[in-house]
Structures are given as structure tokens and as C-alpha cells.
């Protein structure tokens, strides 16, 4: 089973961090492995996912969407119906339970779109922890609603003004806080990125998405799907959906943010256009220039606006287990509009990328085929941005 002991998925992953963090990462790994074996931990985690966050989420057969494209049957995994409105809470509840076990009562997190920030603020309020969230100044503007939600739950949102003023720099700033307050603080990293054990741990917490979807589709259709589609920024909702199907004959398609187009420099299609490098603690694909400096990225969705990606996705790409495609800003908006109009579901801009890709794929398949799309979050947070464009 991957990752191996040192946190590698093939040649990707590892722990590329300052020495000060090494013992904290070791502690986290120990505590996580201990908790994983502890039936009490699993029970507690399941309890909060069910009673607090609202799991299981439905696997909804999108009848209208399916009819429109006259092809594969399209199912939506409704993570948008979870408490806080996105899949991020699966991970934050898990990590907060771990933080309590490590007796670390100060919680820090980075956020891009604000969904992970809100989910962390929520879990911190629930478990009575002090919480600070770093967010790029640019993203605070784009996602003002989420900034206010975090504040309401007692979290301090700290604007990040360095570099690109988006998710990449928010992660830098959170790492700097962690190095400084390492003894009292747990860093709730929000995606399957960062140093080992984060990519593995976040994947495990998020794999509830795929486990449920697998059981649900078997019950509903009596067979496994042909395709899984999900958007990929750092890659947590996609990995959460894909991973439980790893050994099945099911195709994985990750949808990256094509921004203004992948032939321009304004996109965030890391796996499609990037090269191998080291960023934020792991070896993975990154978007970088000819001197190994990390590029600025662009996407209409703050949650996908990131020049790195989880090492397990890099492994999936290199080994051919998953394929990756890019959907640009305009197409994502079309996906956003389409799902709102014909299914009455307003998606977040991130999964709107995957919805658009489903609309391209479905007509090419037969009516016997099945596609599951991860609808990772709802679109309330994006209303202001969409208003500007439509």
C-alpha cells in the first residue's frame, strides 16, 4: 500500500521541510497510525461525520443532465450538502480529533477559497480550540462571505500580502507560523499536499467520499461506474473519491483549472503543464519557470488556484492510473450555469470544472455507461464572482 514508510508514492512525496518541523511530523504520524488502529477513534470520527457533518451524502442520479447529453448516466456525489457546504469538513474533523489527542489546542490553517478555512474554524469551534487561518489578500476579496463566516465562529483570519497573495503564499505563511509555534500548535493542512504524513492522512479522511459512492452505486446500479470525475487543485476531493476505487476497473479523470487557457501563462494546470519539483514539503509536479522559481497561477476558482498538487496525483499521472484534463474559466462558468439551470443545484466554481468535463464526456459514451462526478461544494460563496462574469 502506498505511500511507503518514508511517505513516497513512487518517486513523489517525502518530507522536504525545515528541521524544526521534523519531530512534529513524526509525532503526527505516530499519533495518526495509533488512532487509525484504535476503534474508539474511528467511532468518534464516524459519529461526528454522521451526526454533525451530515454523512452519508446522497449519490444523486442527475436525470436532467443525463437526458440532455443522451449518453452516459451521470451521478453526482453530493458533498455540497455537507455542513459548511463542502467536502473539506471530512478532513478537519479528523485532524481536530488528532490535535486533541496530541493536546495541541492552538489550530492554524491555510485557505484558498475559504472552504477549508471555514471547515477548520467550524471544527475548532466545535472542539473548543483557538484557531487562526491564513488567507491571501486577493482571496479574501474574492471570498468575502467565507471570511465573515470564519470570524463568526471565533477564528482570526490573517491576510497574507506576500507573493501572489493567494493559496500558495497562505501555505508559506502558515508553515512559518507552525515553525514558530510548533510545540503548542497543530497545522490542519487542507489538501493531499505537504510533507508526509499529510498526503496520506488527508486522503484517508477524505476517502469516505469514495467508500460511500462505491457502496451507493453498487446498490443503485448493481455495478461499478466507468468513470470518476473530480476537480483537482491540491487534489483532496478527487483523491477522496478515487482512492477506494484504486483496484477497480474504473477510469479516473482529474480536472485541472485551465484559467485563461493552458497555452497562456494564466492557468493552474499543474499536472498537465508542470514539471517535477519540490514545493511545500513534497516532491510532486509544480508550475515553475526555467530557473526553478514557482509560477503565479490563475483560475476563476480560488480553490484551484495553486501551482502544486498532491504527490499521489503525480504518481497517478506518471503511472497512467488517472488522466488529467484542463477546463478553462469560461467553460467552468458554463458548467456552473448549466447545473444551476437544469438540475437546480448551484455548484461551487471548483466542481463546476468537473461538471463541464462531464458534459463533454457523457455524449461520447453509451447509455449503459456510468459517470460519477464529485460535487465537492456548493456555490453560495461564488455568487459575487459569477455575477461579474455572467
Amino acid at each position, binding site marked *: 500500500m502506498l505511500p511507503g514508510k*518514508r511517505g513516497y508514492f513512487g518517486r513523489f512525496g*517525502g*518530507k*522536504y*521541510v*525545515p*528541521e*524544526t*518541523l*521534523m*519531530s*512534529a511530523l513524526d509525532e503526527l504520524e505516530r499519533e495518526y497510525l495509533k488512532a487509525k488502529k484504535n476503534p474508539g477513534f474511528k467511532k468518534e470520527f464516524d459519529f461526528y461525520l454522521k451526526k454533525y457533518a451530515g454523512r452519508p451524502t446522497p449519490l444523486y442520479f442527475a436525470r436532467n443532465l443525463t437526458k440532455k447529453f443522451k449518453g452516459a448516466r451521470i451521478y453526482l456525489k453530493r458533498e455540497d450538502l455537507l455542513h459548511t457546504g463542502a467536502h473539506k469538513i471530512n478532513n478537519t474533523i479528523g485532524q481536530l480529533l488528532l490535535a486533541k489527542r496530541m493536546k495541541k489546542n492552538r489550530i492554524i490553517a491555510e485557505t484558498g477559497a475559504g472552504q477549508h478555512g471555514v471547515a477548520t474554524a467550524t471544527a475548532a469551534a466545535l472542539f473548543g480550540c483557538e484557531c487562526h487561518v491564513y488567507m491571501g489578500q486577493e482571496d479574501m476579496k474574492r471570498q468575502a462571505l467565507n471570511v465573515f463566516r470564519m470570524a463568526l465562529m471565533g477564528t482570526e483570519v490573517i491576510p497574507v500580502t*506576500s*507573493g501572489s497573495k493567494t493559496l*500558495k*503564499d497562505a501555505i*508559506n505563511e502558515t*508553515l*512559518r507560523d507552525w*515553525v*514558530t*509555534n*510548533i*510545540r503548542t500548535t497543530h497545522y490542519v493542512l487542507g489538501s493531499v499536499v505537504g510533507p508526509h504524513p499529510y498526503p496520506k492522512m488527508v486522503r484517508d479522511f477524505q476517502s469516505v467520499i469514495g467508500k460511500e459512492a462505491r457502496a451507493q452505486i453498487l446498490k443503485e446500479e448493481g455495478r461499478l461506474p466507468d468513470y470518476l470525475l473530480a476537480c483537482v487543485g491540491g487534489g483532496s476531493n478527487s483523491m477522496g473519491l478515487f482512492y477506494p476505487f484504486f483496484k477497480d476497473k474504473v477510469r479516473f479523470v482529474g480536472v485541472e483549472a485551465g484559467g485563461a487557457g493552458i497555452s497562456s501563462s494564466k492557468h493552474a494546470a499543474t499536472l498537465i503543464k508542470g*514539471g517535477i*519539483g*519540490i*514545493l*511545500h*514539503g513534497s516532491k510532486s509536479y*509544480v508550475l*515553475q519557470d526555467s*530557473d*526553478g*522559481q*514557482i509560477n503565479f497561477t490563475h483560475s476563476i476558482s480560488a480553490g484551484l488556484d495553486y501551482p502544486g498538487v498532491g504527490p499521489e496525483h503525480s504518481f497517478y499521472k506518471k503511472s497512467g492510473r488517472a488522466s488529467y484534463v484542463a477546463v478553462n474559466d469560461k467553460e467552468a462558468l458554463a458548467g456552473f450555469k448549466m447545473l444551476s439551470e437544469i438540475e437546480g443545484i448551484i455548484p461551487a466554481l471548483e466542481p463546476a470544472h468537473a461538471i463541464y468535463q462531464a458534459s463533454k464526456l457523457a455524449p461520447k459514451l453509451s447509455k449503459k455507461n456510468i459517470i460519477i462526478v464529485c460535487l465537492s461544494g456548493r456555490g453560495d460563496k461564488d455568487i459575487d464572482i459569477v455575477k461579474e462574469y455572467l
Partner: protein
Amino acid sequence: MNRIKKTFNKLSKDKRKAFIVYITAGYPSMAATEKIVLELERSGVDIVELGVPFSDPMADGLTIQRSSERSLKSGTTLHKILKSVKKIRGKSQIPIILMSYLNPVYHYGVEKFVRDAVKCGVDGAIFPDLPAEEAAELEGAARAQDLYLIFLASPTSTNDRLKIIARHSKGFIYYVSLTGVTGARAALPSHISKNIKRIKRLTDKPVCVGFGVSNEKQARDISRVADGVIIGSALIRVIGENEGKSTLNKAVGKFTSSIAKAVHNE
């Protein structure tokens, strides 16, 4: 013999401590950096660390974040830094260590980097985001060319980790004085000397202390317990204040020579 080793041999014979200075290469320009290095040697610095600027310096505080950003804007690249080191070698034999995040070097190509660096006169390299466990490829290449890889130890390093660090580190061990990022601090933690003793019990290699050190008194105090003192941000600030002025080198010399005296107990 590697210049770092030669320097520590001489210092040890003279019963003196090492004064090591970090500057961001290319801040404010590569030409300025070349002159500053010569000025540092004149003012009593024993070893120079040239920082390779990176877009995402996660272990650095504001001062070095800003100097790195400025340096990148002025067009600094790893390639240009190596060329400057080669130029400096025409005038000075002061040991030069490159301090870089891993990605620029990884992108350049690990083996090519080691080969080119040594050819240009670089003596060692420090990577703040490379723990010994991940260093096999670099270490293999560095050993073949006698480039010293220096590893960092920190207040949170367990004894088991310190043993690993001591085994891998060549030339000296870089002890990070505090849990935090780089940047001048008015006060340093009281556990420095205790932690240095802890490291010294595990190794004979020199231990030098950096992060936060900003003035003569701190430098003198640390030089009593450690084998060397490293300053960075405090000097970058001096460079920033004198940027573009004819007084730049003089100001640098004045600042470093006062700290050099403290470190060398003169």
C-alpha cells in the same frame, strides 16, 4: 583541502570562533554582492553564505523574504550566482557556501549543480528544506566533488535526530537558535547553551549558531558556547538602508567588523 575545513582547522589552532555571514545573492544586485563579499572578508568574516533567492522561502522572515523578492526581480538566477562566485575567486579565497531552497537546485540538476558549483569555487551548500533523510542523491554527488553539505539542527531535534544530523553534516553543524523563521531578534532563547552542549556530547564537529542573532552582545554570548556565530537578516537590513548609496560597503564593513571583534573576542 576544502576551504571550510581549512578555515576551521586554522580557527581551532588559533582558539578562535568562526564568524559566518549570510547575504542574499543579487540584493541589491550581483555586482554589489561581489563587492560586499570582498568587504566582508576585509572586515573579519571567516565564511560567507550566499543565499540563492527563491519565490517561496518558507523558513525565512520578512527581511530575507523581501531581499529575495528584490533579488529575483533584478534577474538573479543560480547560474548568475555561480558566475559571480567564479569572479570573486579571482580575488578572494574566503570559503563560500550557497544557501538555497531545494527546488532551484533540483531544477538545475543535482549533479550538474554540484559539478558547476565546485568548478566555480563554491565550498559547501545548505538547504533549509532538506533533512538528512531526503539527501541521498545530493550527498552522493557532493561527496564525489568534495562539496560540503551542511545540515541544520534545531531546538526540537531529538537526540536520535541529532545523531543523524551530526553524521551527515560536513564542515560544521548549523544550529538554529530558536523555533521560528530567520530574522533579527532583540532577545534569544535561554536554552541555546544547553542545546549546544547536548549536540557537543554527540559529535566532535563544530557547531555554529544562526537565526535571530543581530548584535555584538548576542554574538559574544554565543561565541562563548558555540564554535561559530551566523548572522544574516541584521546585515541585510544594513544593506537595505544603504542601498544605492556610495556608503554601502563602508556601512557593511562597519557593522560586520564590530561583530567580528565580538565573535573573535578582541
